[in-house]
């Protein structure tokens, strides 16, 4: 019976542990892209700190997961860097709004001993991921990297194993720079990769590249920066060498579209202009335009208050994490779009 009392003790300790954790505030669960996750977690930490009545949460499970979750309504908001396709939008039970949050660059991270400031152009990236360039000392790479000590080693390609908006942005770029890629592989959140290893999430790709010598992969800039993994200088459409930066992304956004379409679904890869960074994109928060299905007006209101906060006050945190904030004009449009979201036929946000 002594053992029984031990069991009771353990159970009591568990209960004590549970009650010790305070649990106030309505949960607002979200999930999706890993691309903006560093910024989203920062936002959530700030916002939850100031608004104890809610508990916003975001799980970085990949854009594919985010799109599925919002379609199945298992989350209140999804995250994706890939705009949903028309087919996907049709499959959803109601109309989904794409809310652009920030823009960011995708960088080519690499792990090659003794090589700094690697330069890559569209052709090189396309051929490497196609499995056509297989050695680091390939003539084409040597040609665009004069003076670099490129080793006679196999290139190890790292890509995403999950459905990913970062992959979407990257394959969108590859489709524009490589006919071969466009024909054989295409542009999607998950594709049939011709070669390479799969890593889970942006973090997973960074891990593969860090652990694996002579590898190359693509991640959002914040992931390369945090893990201190070197990334390549891209040669853009205008033939200029550009290092990934906020300015480069803003420039790309400016040069790729005259006017942002009403549903905000755009691609800004391989943009013209001298300063444009070629592999960049917006990241979207996905939310239903009619929140009546939540059957909870306060929840709907808290959710939109959070989203609106991200689009306005939250933007100031973007810069520290190397994301480009929304251009002012766009910010206004986004705010208007959010204001149109309804609950039981009435706009949720005041004013």
């Amino acid at each position, binding site marked *: *019976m*002594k*053992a*029984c009392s*031990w*069991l009771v003790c*353990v*159970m009591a300790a*568990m209960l004590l542990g*549970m009650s010790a*954790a305070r*649990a106030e*505030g309505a*949960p607002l*669960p979200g999930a999706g892209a890993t691309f903006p996750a*560093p910024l989203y*977690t*920062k936002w*959530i*930490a700030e916002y939850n700190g100031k608004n104890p009545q809610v*508990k916003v*949460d*975001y799980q970085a499970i*990949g854009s594919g*997961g985010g*799109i*599925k979750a919002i379609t199945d*309504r*298992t989350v209140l908001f999804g995250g994706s860097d890939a705009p949903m396709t028309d087919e*996907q939008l049709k*499959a959803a039970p109601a109309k989904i709004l794409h809310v652009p949050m920030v823009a960011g660059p995708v960088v080519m991270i690499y792990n090659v001993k003794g090589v700094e400031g690697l330069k890559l152009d569209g052709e090189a990236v396309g051929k490497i991921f196609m499995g056509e360039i297989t050695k680091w000392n390939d003539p084409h790479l040597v040609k665009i990297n004069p003076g670099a000590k490129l080793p006679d080693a*196999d290139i*190890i390609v790292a890509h995403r*194993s*999950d*459905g990913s908006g970062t992959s979407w942005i990257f394959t969108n770029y590859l489709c524009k720079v490589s006919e071969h890629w466009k024909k054989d592989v*295409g542009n*999607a959140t*998950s*594709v*049939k990769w011709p070669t*390479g*290893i*799969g890593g889970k*999430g942006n*973090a*997973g790709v*960074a*891990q*593969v590249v*860090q*652990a*694996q*010598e002579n590898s190359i992969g693509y991640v959002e800039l*914040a*992931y390369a920066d*945090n*893990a*201190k*993994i070197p990334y390549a200088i891209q040669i853009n459409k205008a033939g200029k060498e550009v290092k990934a930066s906020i300015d480069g992304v803003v420039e790309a956004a400016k040069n790729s579209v005259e006017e942002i379409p009403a549903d905000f679904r755009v691609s800004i890869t391989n943009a013209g202009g001298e300063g444009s960074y070629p592999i960049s994109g917006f990241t979207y928060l996905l939310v239903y335009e009619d929140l009546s299905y939540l059957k909870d007006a306060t929840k709907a209101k808290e959710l939109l208050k959070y989203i609106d906060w991200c689009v306005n006050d939250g933007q100031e945190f973007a810069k520290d994490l190397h994301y480009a904030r929304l251009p002012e004009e766009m910010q206004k449009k986004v705010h208007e779009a959010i204001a149109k979201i309804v609950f039981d036929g009435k706009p949720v946000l005041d004013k």
Partner: protein
Amino acid sequence: MSATPTIATSFLEAAQSAKNRNRRLLDVAFEWFAFSGAGIMLLLLALLAGVLIEGAWPAIQKYGLKFLYTSDWDPVEMNFGALPVILGTIVTSVLSLVIAVPASIAVALFLERIGPKWLTPIVAFMVELLAAIPSITYGFWGVAVLVPFIQKVGAPFLKATVAKVPVIGALFAGPAYGFSVLASSIVLAIMVLPTITLVTRDVLRTVPREVEQGSYALGATWWQATKMVLIYAKLGILGAITLGLARAVGETMAVTMIIGNRNAFDLSLFSPGQTMASLLANEFLEADKPEYLQALVYVAAVLLAFTLVMNMAARWFVGMVGEQKKSARPKEEEGDLKSIANKKKEEKPLNTSYRNERLLPKVEPVWHSRWVRFSNKLMRVLCYVSFVAAIGILAMILGYVLYRGVSSLNMDFFTKLPGPIGTPTGMRNCIVGTLILVALGSCFGVPVGVLTGVYLSEYAKPNKFNHFLRLMVDVMAGTPSIIVGVMAYEIIVKPMGKPSGIAGGLALGFLMCPVIARTTEEMLRLVPRAFREGSLALGSSKYHTIVKVIFPAASAGIITGILLSIARVAGETAPLIFTTVGFDSDVIDPRERMPALTLKIYQYATSAEPTWISQAWAGMLVLVMCVLLFSVAVRLVTRNQGFKAS
């Protein structure tokens, strides 16, 4: 005068018969109650199979058996063929067995026949503990140590030597990926080693002494005699190997973390690949179109079929050993009353007396050829080497966790919440979340498991149904945890419309059931028959006997089993990925998504971010230490209690 006693007697009889009726009612009720536990188990297993087949049905209709031999896995074009993952599963698990089986047998031989007597129980206990170490621990160690080692040392070495041999060379061709089939096979080998070793050791114990003694009497060397033992025990060892295979096939997290997640099959062991389990872990959560999800559930069904067949085969093999033994030593097997514990006690001293050849009676030395003498020495040395290597590798893994964990662990880990990337934070909510999930699982798994155990031990007659029931309990124990996750997703997450703590807790409960059922049955069987007979002879009902006499006698053992199973499921990751998903604040409402220690560790461990990595190691240390200390403490506390010691 004569009427009074008659009336008194009839009163007494009437009272007694009423009492008897009540007692009988209670007995029947209790039997049904115990049976309900077994019924729930069977129902769950049927549900598992049913849900998988139902979920996969459209895909089964669409692809049929073609699914199993086409190799195109294309979620863009919606074309699915599972050949690469099936091959990946087979290659990794078979390769892991090629590595693990000789080592396991050598270690088992060392424990039973070579090593000093005092070492055996200690090592056996350690090996049991190692089986409780969470899968993500092996995965994380693989990423941190094995993958770079293979790429920097292993691959260049193999490429310079074996790769030049024709035919075999093809296995080592191509770029040297560290995240590879080879890496995951090695990690799997380390993971199945304890399983195979323990079962082999048990099998070796059942080999009659005559086999070995006879060989020695004919002048055999140690190795020649041992060969006879191994040949005698071949079916049992085959069973052990099959069990190991079943575990390797269903292993998810460690493989997912190091196999490189590529849905294509390549002959080269250096190339990345994918197994059925890792495919599910990677893609289940994001299958956005129904056909995609159906194809994945089809994969889960195939995986379940694989493990079902292997678990049944393993049981059959081990069962054959019993048959064989019966025919070999008919006399000793008949003693039904003899408890297992007593038998062990009896056999041990005899067994150990000829652990060393030099203790054998001196006889005229038999002349052996040089080769025989050499192979004898070689095999003994190999046993020593395998033992030292196995213990060394396992100690290295634990040491590495300890080293990385201690340097990253601080108070913040227990008091803070996960936060933005790059800032040092904690996992307070995850620890609480894991406790809640385990508590939820126990609420479900403990009663069902214990009742099933009671039914199997006390009520089950040796008929076909109960044979089937026992088989199903074993099969359920061998179900890969990722499949249980798929089931919980289909039957709880889908109808509820969102992932929740309940779904995760039930998945854990499902995993606990068969383990608890088996320990309960074993422990109740250890209670001598005299207890039952004595109690019944004193006029107690069967219900009374079980609840008041047998159960208390076995309680220490049963509680040990329960607590050990709790420790084990606390380290589970795979069934939680799509059922509880995670949450970064304090959540105690099980209807919401829930944080769990293992989920957070998995997320942080698959990254390159330094603060995340160190947090993951801290979490790993806490998890592993909890599981290990818990197991050790439970053993120590309950060792000298209850029936076992009396």
